[in-house]
């Protein structure tokens, strides 16, 4: 194992991937972009405002988004709503990792409910970023959508419907007692 808590034999190939970084702090953008340059990503798109980010997404394929949660007036949350609700397949499924600075409890709740794959709180490390990236690729979590939530399935362990309830999803009864994926096996 290593700083990313990943198997040493694992290889990551980001040569053909496009990653979009959205942050209104120019230096943060440079720092995050450098980390992924080191990981081998050649196509790194840096964007300082949310409207430009939308236009980029509408004009080209993006494989992964890093979104800073520091935009005022919950702009990042509205951006997530737009991405998950108002864009077409496959853009609406684009994996998103939220980067949070000062994480109030309210922000953590919103980040949990906004349809992102992960929220990473600062201080971040290169190991954590690589680990989360490998997780997204390895887990390939299904997306779920209904009137109140759209995003990757947040249930890490599917034991069917919660005890004492009939369940809310059509697959609950069939998927009962599915094994939890091994967290370090990415």
């Amino acid at each position: 194992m290593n700083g990313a808590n990943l198997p040493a034999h694992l290889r990551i190939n980001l040569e053909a991937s496009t990653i979009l970084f959205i942050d209104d702090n120019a230096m943060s953008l440079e720092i995050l972009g450098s980390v992924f340059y080191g990981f081998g990503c050649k196509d790194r798109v840096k964007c300082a405002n949310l409207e430009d980010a939308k236009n980029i997404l509408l004009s080209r394929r993006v494989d992964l988004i890093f979104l800073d949660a520091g935009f005022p007036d919950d702009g990042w949350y509205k951006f997530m709503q737009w991405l998950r609700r108002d864009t077409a397949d496959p853009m609406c499924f684009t994996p998103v990792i939220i980067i949070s600075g000062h994480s109030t409890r309210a922000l953590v709740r919103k980040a949990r409910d906004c349809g992102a794959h992960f929220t990473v709180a600062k201080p971040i490390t290169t190991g954590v970023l690589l680990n989360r990236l490998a997780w997204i690729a390895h887990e390939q979590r299904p997306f779920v959508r209904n009137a109140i939530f759209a995003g990757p399935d947040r249930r890490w362990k599917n034991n069917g419907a919660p005890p004492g309830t009939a369940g809310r999803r059509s697959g609950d009864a069939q998927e009962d007692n599915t094994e939890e994926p091994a967290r370090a096996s990415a």
Partner: protein
Amino acid sequence: MSDQWVQYRPKLQIYEILDKPGGVAVEQALQRAEEALEQHRASATHAIRESVTRLEAIVRERGAPDPEQVYAQAGFVLDIAGVYMPALCRASQSLCELVHRLRALGKWDWAAVAVHVSSMRLLLEMRDGMEGAVQSVLDGLAAVVAKYPDPCPPDPPRSAPVPAAS
């Protein structure tokens, strides 16, 4: 949109990054990322120093409380310091949290702000290998923040399932 859950299993390109030939081993990727980060260390440190100096000036003047300005400067340090100086990042996070709590209460506490700013300066100048002292500083700041209540209450505990009627 209905209340019914709909599930999708999209095939995304990012899912293939672990299976594609070529690429870099994890250790190598981490090493390259650290090397790339070093290129920004000097400019990041310079920007952090400027922000801490601004915070010191604000505390020295003790004019009309300006929570937004203190929060913005602390937030800037928090954003940049993370990968280079995690302890300083945590101290600035603590200052952001203090301002957040004071704002919610409609109060201001110069002494609490000042102890944060002087701790940030201390952590900025501290050499490696002083983990014990760093932790003491961070614990002290946490105690200062804890004097004021968190305006956002914790999640209620999950209720136990209702037993089926016999």
